[in-house]
């Protein structure tokens, strides 16, 4: 039976991860998250149903297990096919009542396999209560292996072609005349596609004063969203002219650009800018090798920047590269990472971004040669926020490096579409300042700040209701108290992101939501961040459904004898707390592993597989350990150790290769994960042994708590940072320990296993 439970668990988790990826490609990732969270309720609901059917199943658990497992296999095939055929477009939730019905239908359809699979696992435990540690271990180890299986499968093209939402950029560009797909690749890092059409033009932030033509370009998409444009005709002078009219060209008015580092080089626009301005050596760091491969495939060999002998390509995570290299650069360039329209909708507001934190900027500054410049460009929105946060982050990085004249070392320029900040620890010479001023006025850029001087009488080309970027620069120059005052008063969250709280694109403040709602439903569009809205909605829905489904079995159980010695509330508190705590801790590690490993797919796989497999081992050992309150208390104590251990492990391992980083990351979580495998089976043994049906109740509470946990962890991480997520996890385990202790020696902790 343990083998069967293992196999079911492998498939369940692999299914979940593959669904999540498939939906992310078809729709936008926050919708995928919401849909799958709802479907996951199916797992918890199975516990509820088994509570209700406890009497009917009694004595026939084995047969019930066999039938449920068979049903699981069938549903696993049938449900995704059915869901794929349902006409569902989540973007339409904004305007169509029908879309809400379709969402419910899709979520319910996808919930069925989770329901059947989890039911089979619980039935196995009901059939062999004495075997709980073994079965629980099989469940955890199977789930962990499922994550690894999913990672392996993600390298293959899916059996069905994703029906990409028409609201994504890919189908829109492919509808242009003469558009053709030049190539596509699948990998765990994303689905990359190159599309050629004469109507595609890519010059993000191009000056309104530019009057000439743009060269032909090829569009590169990742998961159906625009990742950039690969430019043809590198050699020809006429084709290179526009490069001097892009925002990043400002940096070349100050820096001697002999050695340039481009972070996130993608289809190569920033490399072209560097080469056009006389760079002799460009190091281009790009995480996704498929983006490079398709760029090179789409361009003729004369246009292929990655073939240029001045260009050195580094495939991998930029944080790892800068931790490893001893090279110094005259210019470090950070280009916008998402497309203009996607940024405007706040679709990636909750994605971790470790390339723009205060710590990241500090490391870039350390890699500047004497006189070197760090240049960063971000899209602007109204009311201003991205540019404001960028200026405050640059200032914070300088200050953290001991700079006492921050204002002297910053230049801030802005057009209607983009803002650029230049950071130079050695300051700018009068000559460079005058070159930058003339660059700004010829490109119709506003000077928000010029190396220690407020913009003064510089011409205003781009009027906004209130030039908050200017106030932010002034506050930064004045010192951290002024910055703190501005941050506290501003309606948006513009706190500089840190490695603890790496959310550059997140701007919604909880306190602001009320004001936005007061503006009226139809007019808070300019402020919406869909990623955040989806998380809140998922939390509310999850909590609502979970509450309803948990009260039902509690009522049923309470009215039914024989009553065990442990009150239901205690069982509920214990298993709810460890369910919530487990996921909070796992989420905290996913976040920090992303800093170490550089991509969410690696981080999720390593954390999920690591936690579940090691917890499986812990569960196996649990039979030989004391039950009661001690296991949960041990987890809470270990977390305190991890709070110190994890940052050290991340810092020390960062320069190493990916495999070594994965190994060290997993080793760092292993002791905690082993300990976290114990409280569930030992709790089952101690608290539910004398009470029929209580196991299913425990399972249901545990499952529902995990559903809520993902949203709760995200909210805590965004507001306060990952340490608080981890501490919240510790608090959960402390609560579990206390509730088990209250059940106490007079409780069930010494009741022998049936």
């Amino acid at each position, binding site marked *: 039976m343990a083998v069967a439970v293992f196999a079911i668990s492998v498939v369940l988790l692999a299914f979940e991860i593959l669904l999540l990826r498939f939906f992310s490609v078809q729709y936008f990732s926050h919708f995928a998250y919401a849909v799958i969270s709802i479907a996951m309720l199916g797992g918890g609901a199975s516990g509820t149903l088994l509570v209700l059917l406890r009497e009917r199943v009694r004595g026939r658990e084995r047969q019930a297990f066999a039938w449920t497992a068979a049903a699981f296999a069938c549903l696993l095939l049938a449900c995704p096919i059915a869901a794929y055929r349902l006409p569902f477009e989540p973007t339409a939730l904004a305007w169509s009542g029908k879309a809400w019905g379709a969402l419910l239908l899709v979520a319910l359809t996808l919930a069925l396999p989770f329901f059947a699979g989890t039911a089979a696992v619980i039935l196995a435990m009901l059939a062999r209560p004495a075997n709980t540690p073994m079965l629980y271990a099989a469940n955890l180890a199977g789930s962990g292996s499922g994550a690894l299986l999913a990672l392996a499968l993600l390298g293959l093209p899916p059996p069905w072609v994703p029906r990409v939402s028409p609201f994504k950029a890919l189908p829109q560009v492919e509808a242009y005349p003469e558009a053709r797909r030049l190539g596509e690749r699948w990998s765990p890092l994303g689905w990359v596609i190159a599309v050629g059409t004469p109507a595609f033009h890519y010059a993000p932030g*191009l000056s309104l004063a530019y009057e000439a*033509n743009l060269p032909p370009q090829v569009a590169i998409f990742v998961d159906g969203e625009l990742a950039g444009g690969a430019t043809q005709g590198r050699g020809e002078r006429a084709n290179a002219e526009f490069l001097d009219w892009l925002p990043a060209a400002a940096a070349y008015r100050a820096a001697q650009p002999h050695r340039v580092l481009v972070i996130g080089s993608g289809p190569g626009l920033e490399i072209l800018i560097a080469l056009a301005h006389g760079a002799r050596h460009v190091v281009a760091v790009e995480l996704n090798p498929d983006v490079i491969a398709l760029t090179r495939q789409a361009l003729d060999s004369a246009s292929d920047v990655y073939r240029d002998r001045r260009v050195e390509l580094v495939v991998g995570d930029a944080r790892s590269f800068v931790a490893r290299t001893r090279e110094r650069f005259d210019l470090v360039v950070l280009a916008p990472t998402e497309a203009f329209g996607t940024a405007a*909708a706040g679709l990636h507001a909750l994605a971790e971004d470790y390339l723009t934190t205060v710590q990241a900027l500090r490391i870039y500054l350390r890699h500047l040669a004497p006189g070197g410049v760090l240049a960063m460009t971000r899209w602007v929105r109204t009311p201003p926020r991205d540019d404001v946060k960028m200026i405050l982050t640059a200032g914070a990085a300088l200050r953290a490096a001991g700079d006492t004249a921050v204002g002297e070392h910053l230049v801030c320029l802005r057009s209607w579409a983009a803002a650029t900040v230049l950071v130079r620890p050695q300051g700018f010479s009068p000559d460079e300042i005058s070159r930058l001023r003339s660059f700004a006025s010829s490109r119709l850029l506003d000077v928000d700040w010029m190396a220690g001087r407020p913009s003064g009488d510089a011409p205003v080309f781009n009027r906004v209701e209130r030039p908050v970027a200017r106030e932010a620069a002034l506050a930064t120059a004045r010192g951290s108290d002024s910055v703190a005052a501005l941050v506290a008063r501003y309606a948006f969250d513009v706190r500089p992101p840190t490695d603890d709280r790496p959310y550059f694109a997140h701007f919604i403040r909880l306190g602001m939501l009320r004001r936005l*709602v007061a*503006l009226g439903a139809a007019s808070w569009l300019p402020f919406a961040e869909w990623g955040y809205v989806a998380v809140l909605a998922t939390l509310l829905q999850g909590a609502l459904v979970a509450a309803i489904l948990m009260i039902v079995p509690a009522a049923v159980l309470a009215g039914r004898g024989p009553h065990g010695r442990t009150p239901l509330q205690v069982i509920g508190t214990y298993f709810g707390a460890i369910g919530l705590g487990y996921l909070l801790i796992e989420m905290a590690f996913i976040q920090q592993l992303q800093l170490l490993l550089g991509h969410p797919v690696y981080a999720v796989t390593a954390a999920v597989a690591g936690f579940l497999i090691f917890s499986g081992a812990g569960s196996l050992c649990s039979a030989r350990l004391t039950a009661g309150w001690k296991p949960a208390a041990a987890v809470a104590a270990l977390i305190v150790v991890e709070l110190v251990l994890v940052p050290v492990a991340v810092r020390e391992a960062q320069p190493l290769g990916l495999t070594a980083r994965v190994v060290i990351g997993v080793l760092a979580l292993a002791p905690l994960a082993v300990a976290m495998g114990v409280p569930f089976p030992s709790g089952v043994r101690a608290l539910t042994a004398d009470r029929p049906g209580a196991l299913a109740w425990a399972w249901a509470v545990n499952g529902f708590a995990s559903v809520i946990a993902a949203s709760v962890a995200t909210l805590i991480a965004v507001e306060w940072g990952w340490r608080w997520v981890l501490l919240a996890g510790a608090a959960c385990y402390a609560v579990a320990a206390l509730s088990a202790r209250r059940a106490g020696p007079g409780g069930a902790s010494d009741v022998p296993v049936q």
Partner: protein
Amino acid sequence: MRGAALVMAGFGLVAGVARAPAQGAVDRERQAMVDEQVAGRGVRDTATLRAMRIVPRHDFVPADLRGAAYSDRPLPIGFGQTISQPFIVGYMTELLSLGPRSRVLEIGTGSGYQAAILAEIAGEVYSVEIISQLAGGAEERLRRLGYGRVHVRRGDGFDGWKDAAPFDAIIVTAAAGFVPPPLVEQLKPGGHLVIPVGSVYGAQNLVVVEKAADGSVTTRTLLPVRFVPFVREH
């Protein structure tokens, strides 16, 4: 944004889209739309308000969404495109400062609704649409509803409409974060170019590019709602 409110409220039940109501009721709905959503939120230009009272918006939305034609939101028209929220159409049209003799260029015909509004106000309206099916549909619709003098062309809006240039006003969505240089060139001195900045959920800001008499170019970014971005002003 209705969607977000609904999302926040959980599985809010939304009334199904009603069938197309009778003519008189449709007219009343349209007047109410202009009164509440457009004039009520501060659009003052009489020509804009008049045009929005006349143009039958419900004829520009897909048949199955006709019942929602006058509601306060953008609607999908296929190919990932939308017809803008009525207020945004009005606000944008007002910003163009059109007169009866103005020449207007629109990049992205879409359903043709904005072009019809422009045709009610301006002298000559030129509209370019890259997606052939949308261009065909809009052209047929405009002709049928009596806006046959709107010139519709299929093709890449990047190049503008050189033969008809210069223009007093241009509307273009700059989804890639820049305005195609030929469009700025085809704008008359004294003219306005309006960019609705946004996503599939509709316009979030409007950027007005103004070309002065001497040919110099400046921009203004406008927020469609009144909002004080600081919580406690000193």
